[in-house]
């Protein structure tokens, strides 16, 4: 009856979103009086015993190189065996690209109910297992009861604060037969030098108000100062001013950073749907009537071309003084 948390990694390192999932899974375990364990497929350079910090007592590792590449079908089989071997009844993922591919797949294999996009601890009173998840692209929440014996949940990135203690986890090799993958990886194109939006604490986003791709220098400068990722509205990506992977909103990426800067973006309902879970929203727009101000925490009515460079300078000053 333990909780098993899937530990995702890239380039030899455990992802930040997995620290959140581990913390979340350990909290669930504490809530229902059981233990939490991690599961890592493939190999990393990180010392896995340090994952104990997030509350897991043990990390199972299936150290097979085939598993360094995502193959949902293969992962699903291996994870299902790990669930059986460890006796887990609750399986936790991060709702990132890997989680989106695997959580549902393995749930089918285990005949377990799945709730993706969880954003709070489950309500486990009265024999229920009610998970709060975002629906309507962040415009509402649904409370969903999982009624199967085994339960699969994936946690929205950035919706649960990581808590690091001083625990040390036992690392245990798990022997599971791994088939050959039916998927061949022909090419990997990582965007170098950029912080992926899903991992970023701060996102600086620009809209059509910036007039053209040539004006993105100040957005990139601000992002660089803040160690932030860059994003954009849909028309900006559609016009190829910015790459598609920066498009946020109902039909783009949904993000929930600690801080979101919306610069020259009007705040259409479809845009807000992808970003309104951000903890703090700052809007810079020359139109005081722009709908985005209604969803903002802080705002400046003014010309982005004037304000953004100043903002960058002021933040640099703060960083120097800090």
């Amino acid at each position: 009856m333990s909780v098993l948390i899937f530990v995702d990694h890239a380039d030899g390192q455990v992802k930040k979103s997995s620290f959140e999932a581990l913390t979340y899974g350990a909290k669930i375990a504490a809530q229902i009086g059981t233990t939490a364990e991690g599961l890592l497929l493939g190999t990393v350079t990180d010392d896995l015993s340090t994952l104990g910090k997030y509350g897991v007592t043990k990390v199972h590792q299936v150290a097979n190189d085939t598993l360094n590449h995502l193959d949902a079908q293969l992962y699903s089989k291996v994870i299902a065996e790990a669930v059986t071997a460890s006796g887990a009844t609750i399986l936790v993922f991060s709702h990132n690209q890997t989680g989106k591919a695997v959580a549902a797949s393995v749930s089918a294999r285990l005949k377990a109910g799945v709730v993706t996009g969880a954003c709070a601890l489950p309500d486990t009173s009265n024999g229920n297992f009610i998970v709060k998840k975002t629906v309507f692209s962040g415009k509402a929440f649904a409370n969903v009861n999982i009624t199967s014996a085994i339960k699969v949940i994936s946690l929205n990135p950035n919706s649960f604060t990581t808590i690091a203690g001083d625990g040390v986890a036992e690392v245990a090799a798990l022997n599971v037969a791994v088939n050959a993958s039916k998927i061949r990886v022909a090419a990997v194109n990582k965007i170098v030098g950029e912080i992926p939006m899903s991992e970023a604490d701060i996102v600086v986003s620009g809209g059509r108000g910036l007039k053209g791709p040539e004006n993105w220098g100040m957005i990139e400068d601000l992002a660089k100062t803040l160690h932030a990722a860059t994003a954009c509205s849909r028309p900006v990506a559609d016009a190829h001013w910015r790459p598609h992977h920066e498009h946020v909103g109902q039909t783009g990426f949904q993000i929930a950073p600690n801080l979101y800067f919306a610069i020259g973006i009007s705040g259409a309902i479809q845009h807000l749907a992808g970003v309104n879970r951000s903890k703090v929203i700052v809007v810079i727009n020359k139109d005081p009537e722009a709908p985005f101000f209604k969803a903002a925490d802080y705002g400046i009515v003014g010309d982005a071309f004037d304000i953004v460079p100043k903002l960058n300078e002021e933040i640099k000053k703060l960083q120097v003084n800090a």
Partner: protein
Amino acid sequence: MKILVCISKTPDTTSKIAFKDGNTKFEDAGVQWIINPYDEWYALVRAIELKEKDPATVLHLITVGGADCEPIIRKALALGGDEAIRINADNFDSYFIAAQIAEVAKQGAYDLIFTGKETIDYNSSSIGGIVAELVDAPYISLATKFDVAGNTVTVTREIEGGEETNEAELPVVVSCAKGVAEQRIPNMRGIMAARTKPLKVVEPAAIDALTSVVSYELPPAKAGVKLVAADNVAELVRLLHEEAKAI
């Protein structure tokens, strides 16, 4: 090649989100329903393009939903496709929906099953993975490009901070994101043709749902924006640092 495209309906993106019956049901009064954009713009259009390239391709559409889904599935047929199947059941549970699709998929021996990346109402991103497991096919999710030559598919998919190109042999299940195709508008000929295309209604297989919605809630309203004068950018930085503790 036989292709099955999964089509779902969703409230128009501008719909007011509200709930009824003690917050247990979506308030659908006055709501315009549309085809889920990922299904329409990307999955369906790419499937149509494949059929245009190879007219021998058989293209079926499937939806799990009540009779109120018929306008949506007809609209999808107006874009393209040979026939549609509607499984007559209304259920929120991903396993239930996917298992219904998998039943049809197994009987139809499809080579390629397309879903959208996610529905924009429930945002589950789950149906494709479950269908793939149940039909025992490889699953490639969040595709941004899709090509097929002979039996081999080449799929570019989103990974964190980039993209990756995968190859696999048919049959496969693929979930489609932006980039796979470009949105199309149905033309008059398509709309006329759709009226006479077969739309089969199938009763659902006996499958138990594994989850159920207990209630819905709306997020708490924002406290209201704090405006800072345009000539006082330093004050914004101070607030972000000292008050919001965000930088």
